[in-house]
């Protein structure tokens, strides 16, 4: 049995040397040895990525619910969303959302270069594209309702509206954020130094887009 006897990690000598200076003399008031983030990465960005990781489980749950229920018509055999999908229409709005990722990343690129005006334009474009997508979703929902697919019809339609509705709410919040950035930019408060803020909002926006990439394929295109 090899029992190692030692202080972990460092040699004792080092440890001793590292003993802190006596309080009072070495650290004068205000001489706070500030230290940056230990990993050197931005807190806000890291937080956003963690949040997006967690969102994967949220959307995963909603998507699984839909997949489990997608053909369940309930006892009255009512219509389910797949009956009334309008693939051409949804393809267009999916494409719009996809392209909004491009405008988003261009907004960020512009701002990082210091091109405030370009950033503003692209931000506006992004939120408009998002707005078109939401408009399309509102249209889709109302036409589905007209065609008899109501939220309370059956498990399939409840699950469909819950999933796409949650996604829509995410997009809408994204639009609110983008518009806030746009307004800030307009007021001249959004400048090159703020590109990280735009980047973080962008991450959120792209995430919402990739979720839709998933939804579009798995919910709309994969045949029942």
């Amino acid at each position, binding site marked *: 049995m090899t029992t190692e006897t030692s202080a972990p990690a460092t040699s004792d000598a080092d440890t001793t040397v590292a003993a802190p200076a006596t309080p009072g003399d070495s650290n004068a008031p205000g001489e706070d040895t500030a230290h940056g983030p230990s990993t*050197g*990465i931005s807190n806000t960005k890291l937080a956003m*990525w963690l949040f997006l*990781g967690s969102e994967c489980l949220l*959307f*995963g749950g909603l998507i699984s619910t839909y997949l489990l229920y997608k053909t369940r018509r309930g006892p009255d055999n009512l219509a389910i969303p797949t009956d009334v999908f309008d693939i051409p229409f949804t393809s267009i709005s999916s494409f719009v959302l*996809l392209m909004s990722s491009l405008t988003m990343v*261009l907004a960020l*690129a512009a701002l990082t270069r210091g091109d405030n005006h370009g950033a503003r334009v692209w931000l506006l474009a992004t939120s408009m594209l998002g707005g078109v997508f939401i408009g399309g979703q509102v249209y889709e929902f109302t036409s589905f309702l007209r065609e008899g697919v109501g939220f309370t019809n059956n498990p399939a339609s409840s699950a469909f509206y819950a999933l796409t509705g949650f996604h829509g709410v995410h997009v809408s919040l994204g639009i609110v954020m983008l518009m806030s950035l746009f307004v800030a930019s307009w007021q001249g408060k959004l400048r090159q130094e703020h590109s990280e803020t735009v980047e973080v909002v962008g991450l959120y926006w792209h995430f919402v*887009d990739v979720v839709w990439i998933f939804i579009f394929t798995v919910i709309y295109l994969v045949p029942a």
Partner: protein
Amino acid sequence: MSTTTSAHEAAADGAPEDAAHEHPEHEHPSDWAYVKIALILAVITAVEVFTYFETVLDWGSFLIPSLLIMMVIKFWLVATWFMHLKFDNPIFSKMFVGGLLLAVGVYVAALAAFEFWA
């Protein structure tokens, strides 16, 4: 267009670095590179939608796998390029991919419990 990874790796030796390294501005791709990615995305989407319309080719059992593959490629392109995972600190990828894989694993197992192992 430089795709060098962050300066943080260089920091691994523990030497205190100066401010420039502290918050490195990555050399991001040019706008044109982004547009190219978007074009690829557009093309893939077109192919996806095409599978829905065209009736001549018989996709048969290839349909679903090819749709899923195209989906993964799109997902990956957006995440690596537009979300900069390709250029950014790998910690970000770890956090995100961790959540993603966990979600896939857990929910696939749960759905399997309903469908196949029932």
